[in-house]
Structures are given as structure tokens and as C-alpha cells.
């Protein structure tokens, strides 16, 4: 049985192989030239071009070989005339700033017939201020193909977008631009032409200028007397039309006009800030001294050495105490910490220096994530002997603070031993009780009694207003009386009266 099955499968496989060898019926291509055994695909010019383009990328060496094979020497004829290539600039203003956009254009005219024209290679060259030689701007030639000239004028042009302005210049002055041309046989420059009239030029010559930066809005914060380690900040605004990266230097002078500090920053035009604490401009030894300041700045090309000419005043650093602060504490008038309780706060301070100074202490409180609320400010003379500053019988909390933990802070007008000007601590949780009166209190008795009296009176006024007592009955009786005048047979009231009376008796 198995043998039979194997034989059938082998036979089936054999038949399939025969079919593969024979293959499907094919019709000869009309473009096929015949012969050559296995058949050939038609040659398509588009495919050939694509193959060459692909080869240019994937196999550059083979592509170069192909170019060599296909190279055709330029037609040399006595009738061939050199194309005219000139610089073009539309406008009279050749004095421009470094940042001003400029269109550098080269125009070419080729009067040769198409079959005699040659591809042109253009190189832009520039001579920067102070330089003796031209330098090439484009490393790869800008090519003008033979077929791209206009039919009527036989002209074409190139805009040199790689040089949109002269922002790159580090030195200002005269800039010259020209183009070197090659047609494969001849090489010449636009500078070789003479008697050229605007807007065509053999060379473009620009006088490139620079805009100096300038500063304004000088400000020193905080103004007035400050402590040496206060957050002193010098602020100003620097502007530059060219938008260059600027170097700004702050110069700080002492009372004699001698420079004691300077600091430079590199910045783009806009606000400039120097923070004294960041750069360590002032020390404790500067206490009692007055300083002045000015700025100098440059944009890498030009500079301003002193702005403003007369140095500005500031800062004036005051003498003060160097505090040692501790024992920040609080007490409540009851241990329940009700919101209406009176609270006492205290802090101990002394001056680490022998002098005695007046120092102000400001107590603030807050609950949980709330804002600090100023409670009281006290000024005390602080000397070398410790002084306890007390804030007695304060009422810093409101009913909305119930159930929240409070924090308290004492801020002082001088810095303490840790360099801070305040000390804060966590207090206690404020009792959740809302009503500050007991039911036995006079105010609550007045509260309840007045309310009850007024409510009772409302009842009486209502009755007097609506007259639902005797008057209502009288009204009702009058109505009945009037009704009685009507025919009992029509209204049936008299019988209803008796039923109603009967029901009432029940």
C-alpha cells in the first residue's frame, strides 16, 4: 500500500517538473531584436537615465569612468565668444550695516548658439576689511547649464544665498565681491571687465558699518541703605541693532573712585542683571561704605568703555548688628489652643558685636499652606547682652483657622548667625471649636432670648396682620349673613349650616 502511494507521489512530482521546464506560453516582444537565446528586456531611455543617476550615487568611481568615456571635447570654433558675466546690484546705497540683508547677484549673457555653449562654473570671492586677498565663498562651483539662458536675452542669473549679510564680519570697512568664471577652456573674473554701468558691476564694493550697543534703564535694587548681604541687584537693559553677542562688565568703585570689583557677562541684547550675593561683591567689612558703579560693554567690534560717563550712586551699605537669635517660642492663654485665645510669642536675640543697634522684629503667623500674616512689629535695642523680645496677648487667628496647625515666624531687620533674617517654627493644632461663647455666657443668653422674643412677636404680628382669630370668624359670619339673604332653595345654605353645626357638636 505504502509502495503504491510513494509511486503515485513520485509520478506526480515528475509531471510537475516537466511543466516547469516547458514553462508558460510566451509571445515575442515587438521591440525585441531576437536572437541571444534567453530573451532580452527592451531598452528604455528613462530607465537608462535612472540607472546612471543611481550609479552616480552608489558607484561614483564607475560613474567617473563613464564620464571619461562619454566626454566630448568642447567645440572650439573661431565663432565662439566668451559669455559676459557681471555682478548685479540694484540700489544706490552701498553703505550697509552688518546685519542688513543684501542680495548678491551675478548675471551671465551667452550669445553663442546652443550647440556651441559651454557649461560655466562660478566661484564667488570676497575681500573682507583689512584683508589683502580674496577668499572663495563657495567650495563647490555654481554651475550655469547651457540650456538655461533665456531665449530672448540669452541671459541667466545666480543669487548668492550663502552670503545673505555681513553679520559674520569681526571688523567693519570696505568689502569687495567678485566672481571667477570658467567655461572649461577659459577662466576669467568679473573684475576683468571695464566700462560697466550700474546696476552691473565688475566688482561689488560695500562699506559695511557696525551698530554700537547702548545701555539704558540703570537700576539698583533695593535703593537706599542696605545691608551688605541684602539681595542687591544691578539691573539695566542693553540694546544692539545688530543683535550681536555682547560682553558687559560692571565696574564697582569705592568712595575714592577706585575700582574695587568688576564682573563681566556675555549676553544677548536685553535685560542685564548682576546679583551682588551671587558674585560676592560686598563683605561685612564694607558696612558703612558708599559705592558707585558704571558699565562697559562691547559687541566684539566696537566698545563703550564707560556708561554712564558719571558713575551712578549705590549701594550705601549700612552698619548694623550681627545677631545671634534663639529661643523662639509661643504660649497660649489656654492649653486648648482655641482660635479666639490670646497667644504670646517670644524670641531671644543679642548682638555678636559689642555695639548696640536698634533692630526691628516682626511676628507673622500662618496656618498650614496659607500666607504669612503680619501680627505685630517691635523695635528693640540689641547689644551684646541677650534681650527677650516678647509679643504678648496677640490674637493672630481667625475662626477659619480652626482644626489647622499654625506656624509662626519672627523676621528681623538684621541677619543672624546663620545668615538668615528670620526664624520660624511649627506651633500647635488650633482647636476645632468654632463658637467662642458658652451657653451660660451673657452674650449667648442675650442671643437666645432676643431670638425667642422676636420669633414669638413674629407669630403675634402675623395674627394681627392676617386676622385669623375673631375677625376671621366675624368675616365668615358676615359672609353667611349675606348669604342668608339669598333664597335657601337656591343655595341650600341653611340646611348646610345645621349640618355643619351638628358636625361641630360631634
Amino acid at each position, binding site marked *: 500500500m505504502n509502495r503504491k502511494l510513494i509511486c503515485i507521489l513520485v509520478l506526480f512530482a515528475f509531471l510537475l517538473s516537466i511543466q516547469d521546464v516547458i514553462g508558460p506560453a510566451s509571445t515575442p516582444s515587438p521591440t525585441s531584436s531576437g536572437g541571444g537565446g534567453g530573451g532580452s528586456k527592451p531598452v528604455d531611455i528613462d530607465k537608462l537615465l535612472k540607472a546612471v543617476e543611481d550609479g552616480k550615487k552608489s558607484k561614483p568611481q564607475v560613474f567617473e569612468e563613464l564620464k571619461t568615456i562619454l566626454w566630448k571635447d568642447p567645440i572650439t570654433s573661431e565663432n565662439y565668444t566668451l559669455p559676459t558675466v557681471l555682478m548685479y546690484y540694484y540700489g544706490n546705497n552701498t553703505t550697509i550695516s552688518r546685519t542688513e540683508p543684501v542680495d548678491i547677484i551675478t548675471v551671465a549673457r551667452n550669445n553663442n548658439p546652443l550647440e556651441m555653449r559651454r557649461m560655466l562654473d562660478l566661484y564667488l570671492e570676497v575681500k573682507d576689511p583689512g584683508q589683502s586677498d580674496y577668499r572663495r565663498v563657495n567650495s563647490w562651483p555654481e554651475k550655469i547649464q547651457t540650456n538655461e539662458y533665456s531665449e530672448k536675452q540669452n541671459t541667466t542669473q545666480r543669487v548668492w544665498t550663502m552670503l545673505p549679510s555681513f553679520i559674520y564680519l569681526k571688523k567693519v570697512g570696505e568689502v569687495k565681491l567678485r566672481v571667477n568664471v570658467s567655461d572649461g577652456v577659459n577662466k576669467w573674473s568679473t573684475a576683468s571687465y571695464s566700462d560697466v554701468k550700474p546696476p552691473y558691476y565688475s566688482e561689488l564694493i560695500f562699506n559695511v558699518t557696525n551698530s554700537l550697543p547702548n545701555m539704558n534703564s540703570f537700576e539698583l535694587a533695593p535703593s537706599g541703605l542696605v545691608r551688605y548681604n541684602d539681595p542687591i541687584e544691578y539691573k539695566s537693559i542693553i540694546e544692539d541693532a545688530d543683535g550681536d553677542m555682547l560682553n558687559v562688565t560692571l565696574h564697582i568703585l569705592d568712595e575714592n573712585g577706585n575700582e574695587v570689583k568688576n564682573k563681566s557677562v556675555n549676553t544677548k541684547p536685553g535685560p542685564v542683571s548682576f546679583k551682588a550675593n551671587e558674585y560676592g561683591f560686598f563683605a561685612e567689612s564694607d558696612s558703612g561704605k558708599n559705592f558707585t558703579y558704571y558699565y562697559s560693554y562691547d559687541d566684539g567690534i566696537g566698545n563703550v568703555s564707560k556708561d554712564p560717563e558719571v558713575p551712578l550712586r549705590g549701594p550705601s551699605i549700612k552698619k548694623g548688628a550681627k545677631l545671634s537669635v534663639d529661643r523662639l517660642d509661643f504660649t497660649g492663654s489656654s492649653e486648648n489652643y482655641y*482660635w*479666639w485665645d490670646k497667644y504670646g510669642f517670644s524670641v531671644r536675640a543679642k548682638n555678636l558685636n559689642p555695639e548696640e543697634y536698634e533692630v526691628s522684629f516682626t511676628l507673622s503667623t500662618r496656618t498650614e499652606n496659607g500666607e504669612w500674616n503680619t501680627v505685630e512689629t517691635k523695635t528693640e535695642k540689641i547689644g551684646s547682652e541677650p534681650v527677650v523680645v516678647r509679643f504678648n496677648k496677640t490674637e493672630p487667628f*481667625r*475662626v*477659619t483657622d*480652626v482644626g489647622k496647625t499654625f506656624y509662626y515666624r519672627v523676621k528681623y531687620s538684621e541677619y543672624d548667625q546663620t545668615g538668615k533674617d528670620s526664624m520660624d517654627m511649627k506651633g500647635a493644632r488650633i482647636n*476645632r*471649636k*468654632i*463658637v*467662642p*461663647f*458658652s*451657653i451660660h455666657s451673657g*452674650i*449667648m443668653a442675650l*442671643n*437666645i432670648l*432676643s*431670638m*425667642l422674643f*422676636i*420669633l*414669638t*412677636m*413674629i*407669630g*403675634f404680628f*402675623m*395674627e*394681627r396682620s*392676617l*386676622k*385669623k*382669630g*375673631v*375677625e*376671621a*370668624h*366675624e368675616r*365668615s359670619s358676615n*359672609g*353667611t349673613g349675606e*348669604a342668608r339673604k339669598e333664597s335657601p332653595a337656591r*343655595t*341650600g*345654605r341653611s*340646611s*348646610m*349650616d345645621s*349640618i*355643619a353645626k351638628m*358636625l*361641630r357638636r*360631634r
Partner: protein
Amino acid sequence: MDRIVQFLIENLFAEGTIALVLVLTIAAALHINNIKNVYKLIGILQKKTVDKSHFYKEMTVSQGSNFTALAFASWIMLFVAIAFLYLLVPTVHSVSFMDIAELASNPFGFAIFGIAVGLLAAVVIFFLDKLPSDMRVFKLTELYSFYAISKGTKKMIGLTLVALYGSVALSAYVGTIYPDRSMNAQLISLALLIVSAGILVMPIYKEAWEARR
């Protein structure tokens, strides 16, 4: 059995609240039913349909201005006592007058709250009084005009005002100690409220009872 008793004791306040609601709701239903029955009876006896406003007019009994004034005051006080018990501090609902902490802590905060509720109740009563004459059954101002009320009952209705004062005072006490609680004060306040409400609607129950007999 002990568990049931214990459960009942633990939930006295809720049970009392349900009782208060039932007393007032059943009274309202009985009042409407009482008037309806009388109207129907008159229709049967008259053997024709009687004009409703005419019927109400004939049914009206004057109860005296002093009693009516006291009854109005008692009803207003009942609403104020209910507000004090249930809205001064969180009880059945989490929303309470204590949420307006600045007003609650005001020296006259409780009085402002009570008077506001009382005025609101008075406005509602006034509004009901403006209903058409064929809907007089819904007028709280004429509740007692449809019933024969004995002098004793009138005295009791007058005295509910004192009981309601007590209820309001106890609820106010609970407000002053909030967030602490005094379940005893709340229960007594509720008991006074239930008793007062029961007395205020007693003529309705009495009429319904006698009609059944």
C-alpha cells in the same frame, strides 16, 4: 432581644427623627382626609354638590386672636427648633450652620440664624395663606379653624411654645460645644420637638379618631 433593644437605644436620634416626620406627615394627610370626609358627608346629606369655598366658609370656627397668635408663634418656633436641631451642627446631613464659621462665631450668629429661619417660615406661611379659597385646607393659618378645640387643648398648644424654647436652647447648647457632642441634649431637644409637634397637630388626630368612632 437584647440586641434589638440595644440597637434601638443606639439609634434613638434617628428613630425620633422618623417619629417626628411621621407625626407631621400623617397629621397633614389626616387633615386633608378629615376635611374631605366632611365635605363628602355634606354632599350626601344635601344630595347635591356643594361649592367648596362656601363649604370652607361654613366650616370655619374662630378660635380667638390670642390663641391664634400663640399657635402661629408655636408653628414658627417649631420650624426654628427643627432647624436648630438638624442644621445648627451636622446631624443627619453633613451641611450645617457651622460651615459658615464666621457667622457661627459671631456674638449674634445664633440669633441671626434663628430669626432668618423664622422669617422664612413666616414667608412660607404667608404664601400658603394666599392660596385660592377652595384650597384653604392647605393654609396653615386656618388649620385650627376647621376643628372644635377645647380650652385644655388650647392651653396645651400655647404651652408648646415653652417646650420649643427649651428645644431651641438645648440645640443652641449643642452648637456652642461643637465639635463636641451631647447626645443627651440632642435627644431631649428632639423629644421636646416631637411632643410639641404632637400637641400642635393633636386636634387633627382627635377629629380623625372621633370620625372613626
